[in-house]
C-alpha cells in the first residue's frame, strides 16, 4: 500500500499521452521516413548487385563468344593457309610442266635444226666432193672419158660413199 502512494493517476495519464505524442511524431519523422530510405537503399543496393551479376554474366558470355570466334578464325586461317599451300603446289607443278614442255620444244627444235644443218652440210659436202672428184678425174683421165660417163662413175662412187 505504501508503494501505491507513489502513484499518481494524473501523472500516468500525462505520461501515456506524452508517449503517444512522441510515438506519433516519431512514426512520421523517424520510422516512416528513415525506414523508407533504408528500404529504398537496400533495394537499390540489391538492384546494383543484380546489375553487376548480369554484367558479369554478359562479360562471361562475350568472353566465351570471343574465344569461340577466335578459335573459328584460327581454324579459317589454317584452312586458308592449307588451301594456299595446295594452290601454290599446283601452280608450281603447272609451271614445271610448262617449263618441261617448253624445254622439250626447244630441244626438239634444236635437234631438227641440227638435222637440217647436217643434211645441208652433207649435200654441200657431196657437191664439193663431186666437184673435187670431177676435177681430179678430169685432171687424171682428161680425155679418155666423156662427161656423161664421168657423171655416171661419180654417182656410183657417191652411192658407194653413202653406203659407207
Amino acid at each position: 500500500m505504501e508503494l501505491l502512494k507513489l502513484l499518481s493517476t494524473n501523472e500516468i495519464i500525462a505520461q501515456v499521452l506524452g508517449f503517444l505524442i512522441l510515438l506519433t511524431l516519431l512514426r512520421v519523422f523517424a520510422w516512416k521516413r528513415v525506414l523508407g530510405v533504408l528500404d529504398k537503399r537496400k533495394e537499390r543496393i540489391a538492384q546494383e548487385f543484380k546489375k553487376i551479376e548480369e554484367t558479369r554474366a554478359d562479360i562471361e558470355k562475350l568472353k566465351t563468344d570471343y574465344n569461340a570466334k577466335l578459335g573459328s578464325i584460327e581454324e579459317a586461317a589454317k584452312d586458308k593457309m592449307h588451301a594456299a599451300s595446295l594452290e601454290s603446289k599446283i601452280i608450281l607443278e603447272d609451271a614445271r610442266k610448262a617449263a618441261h614442255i617448253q624445254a622439250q620444244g626447244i630441244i626438239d627444235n634444236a635437234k631438227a635444226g641440227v638435222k637440217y644443218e647436217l643434211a645441208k652440210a652433207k649435200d654441200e659436202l657431196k657437191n664439193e666432193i663431186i666437184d673435187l672428184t670431177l676435177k681430179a678425174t678430169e685432171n687424171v683421165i682428161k680425155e679418155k672419158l666423156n662427161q656423161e660417163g664421168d657423171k655416171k662413175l661419180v654417182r656410183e662412187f657417191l652411192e658407194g660413199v653413202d653406203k659407207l
Partner: protein
Amino acid sequence: MVEAHQTQSELPNLVSFLAEAVGKSTHLGEQVILWQNVIFSLLIVFIISLIAYLASRKPKMIPGKLQNAIELVVGGLDDFVCGILGKQGRRYTPFIGTLFIYILFMNLSGIIPFLKSPTASWSTTLGLAFCVFVYVQYAAFKELGFLGYLDHMLGKPRGILAFSVFIPLMMFILHIVSELVRPLSLSLRLRSNIWGDDLLLAVLAGFGPAGIPLLVFSMLLAILAAVVQAVVFSLLTTIYFSLVLTHEEV
C-alpha cells in the same frame, strides 16, 4: 503526492529551482513539483522529436552525419525487433523503437546536471508499461481474432477429461494474472533501478569533493544501467509480442 516526491533524496534540478523561485509552499510551487516528471518527459519528447525532424526532414540516399546516426539507431532497432518477431516485426518496430529511445533518454537525463530521470517515478514507468499492455492485447486480438485469443488464454494441451474444462480454466486465470502482472513487473523493475541509481548519485554528490571519484564511477555505472534497463524494457516488450503473435507456431 508532494510528500512522496519530497521524501526521495535527489539532486536539485531546473524544475525544483523554479519551484523554489515561485515558492514551494505556494499552489504553483506545489504543482510544479508535482508535475516535474511530466515536465521533464515533455522536454525529452520535444528534444527527441526535434532531432528526428532535423535528421529526416530531407532524407538523402547518401546520408549526412545526423541522418547517418539516426539511420544507425533506426536500422539497429528494426533489426533487433525483426530478429525476434520475424518479418511481421516491422509493424511493431515504431512502437518498440520509440519506447527504447524514450526510456533511454529519460534514464540518461538523470546523469545530466540539473535534469532528472522521469523514469525514477513509478507513475512514468507504469504509464509506459500500461501502453505496452494495451498494445500487446490489441495486437493479439488483431492477429489471432477473438477465438484465437481465447484459445491462447486457455493454454494447451486440451481435449480429454480434466484437460477439457478444469485445466483450461485454471490456465485462463493464470494467463490473465500473468498478463496483469507484466506491466507491474516491467514498470517496477525500470523505476527501481533508475531510482536507485539517482539516489546513489545524490548521496555521493552530498560527500562533496571527497566523493568525486566514487561519483564518476557511479555515473559510469548509471550510464550502463540506463542503457541496460532501456534494452531490458524493450526486449521484454518484444518478447510479450512474440508470445502472443507466434503462439500457433510454438
